[in-house]
């Protein structure tokens, strides 16, 4: 395997890890405020329990987004420039929503009142929804490409230049699937990581979202095996096989991301205007010297990142109780 191919595989790996890992914490962010019920105190407690399941891991999950974009920048500067510049305003929206989301998560427990926590939960749900939809839309856009000119830039004027792709059919399907996948994963994760009423309601939520995902898959005419995957997932959730359900949900998301990134190989970003302006793995790669340097750095750093992240999941492996303890 030559170095550009190796680094392309690494970029896709980072994106898979981002969508799989952060997908479930987007889902938990959207579901927590909905699934926490009961009287005021109980609801407050259950929402806190839901947020606690992702509390220690969400920012670690988000590191894979930084890694994916950082690795693309280092190994494929032309791809990085064309994609992020061509989707300038959608990416700004992603950053703003991520900023609000991180603050909502971290400041939630620092206001001291139930009202403040409700405000943070609403901000968390809204920003999780926005980011899941925007990244789903970006994957949808990747399946068709951008209007790249010969210089690797999207031409045009005004905000429509970079916002218009968000309104295309594939982007809308991608946004819907991004949100639905996060909801399913989030419900599966809550089922895996909580006890009591929250755990039971998470199962119901997963079973409610899966048919909607099935309809979107049918309408968008995605490959039939995807439907089979959703069916298997529904059976696993109904049979209370929580570990397996989460693994299958994550597997489906990962497979989808790989499919999008490898669909047009060796092209990594298609130009909808001019086939010769499309970016390929070899064409977008950095110089061989640069790739050799980052290969050494990657070999040193990546195993450490994976190891400490695995460790943090191991430390916080116990379930979070959604019942209140009355001492």
């Amino acid at each position, binding site marked *: 395997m030559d170095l550009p191919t190796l680094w392309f595989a690494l970029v896709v790996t980072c994106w898979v890890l981002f969508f799989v890992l952060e997908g479930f914490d987007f889902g938990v962010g959207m579901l927590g405020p909905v699934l926490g019920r009961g009287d005021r105190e109980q609801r407050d407690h259950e929402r806190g329990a839901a947020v*606690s399941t992702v509390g220690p891991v969400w920012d670690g999950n988000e590191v894979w987004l930084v890694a994916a974009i950082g690795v693309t920048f280092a190994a494929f500067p032309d791809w990085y420039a064309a994609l992020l510049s061509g989707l300038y305003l959608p990416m700004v929206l992603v950053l703003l929503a991520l900023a609000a989301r991180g603050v909502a998560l971290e400041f939630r*427990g620092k206001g001291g009142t139930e009202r403040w926590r409700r405000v943070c939960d609403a901000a968390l749900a809204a920003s999780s929804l926005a980011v899941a939809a925007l990244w789903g839309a970006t994957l949808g856009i990747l399946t068709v490409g951008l209007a790249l000119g010969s210089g690797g830039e999207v031409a045009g004027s005004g905000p429509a230049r970079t916002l218009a792709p968000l309104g295309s059919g594939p982007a809308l399907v991608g946004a819907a699937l991004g949100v639905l996948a996060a909801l399913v994963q989030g419900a599966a994760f809550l089922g895996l990581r909580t006890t009591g009423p929250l755990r039971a309601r998470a199962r119901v939520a997963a079973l409610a979202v899966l048919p909607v995902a099935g309809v979107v898959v049918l309408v968008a005419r995605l490959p039939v095996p995807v439907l089979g995957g959703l069916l298997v997932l529904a059976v696993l959730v109904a049979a209370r096989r929580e570990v397996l359900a989460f693994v299958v949900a994550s597997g489906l998301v990962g497979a989808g991301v790989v499919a999008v990134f490898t669909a047009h190989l060796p092209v990594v970003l298609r130009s909808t205007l001019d086939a010769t302006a499309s970016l390929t793995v070899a064409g977008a790669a950095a110089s061989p010297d640069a790739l050799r340097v980052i290969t050494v750095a990657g070999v040193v750093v990546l195993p450490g990142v994976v190891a400490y992240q695995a460790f943090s999941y191991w430390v916080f492996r116990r379930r979070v109780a959604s019942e209140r303890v009355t001492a």
Partner: protein
Amino acid sequence: MLAAVVGVWVLWRTRRGRDLDAAHRVDRLLLRGLWTVPLLPAAGATFGWLFTETARQPWLVFGLFRTADGVSPGLTPSELAASLAGFALVYGALALVWVRLVLRIGRADLAPAPAADPVDDADDRTPVPSY
């Protein structure tokens, strides 16, 4: 650095239950100015970034790559204005929230030391986060 010096000084002066002494010259200065200490790291971090970025101009990579050459060619003025407004708005709102929370925490009384947990078997010591 300054905060560390102040910290060591206060620790020394309050050793064995002593209190800062308003008659002592350094202590009096500290009692009046101590509230600025939490602001110093925030100011340090902010000015550190400002000085790093502005001192490097007009270069993006010193001596190699000019900032003017690093601008995305496709970017339009309206996009820049929109993103700048967005960042100013969201970060401005977040800054207000931050100031309010810092003031709230600053005004709150110190929490009493937690009582020792009577049950201390290994199973109970798995950390559980609270949010």
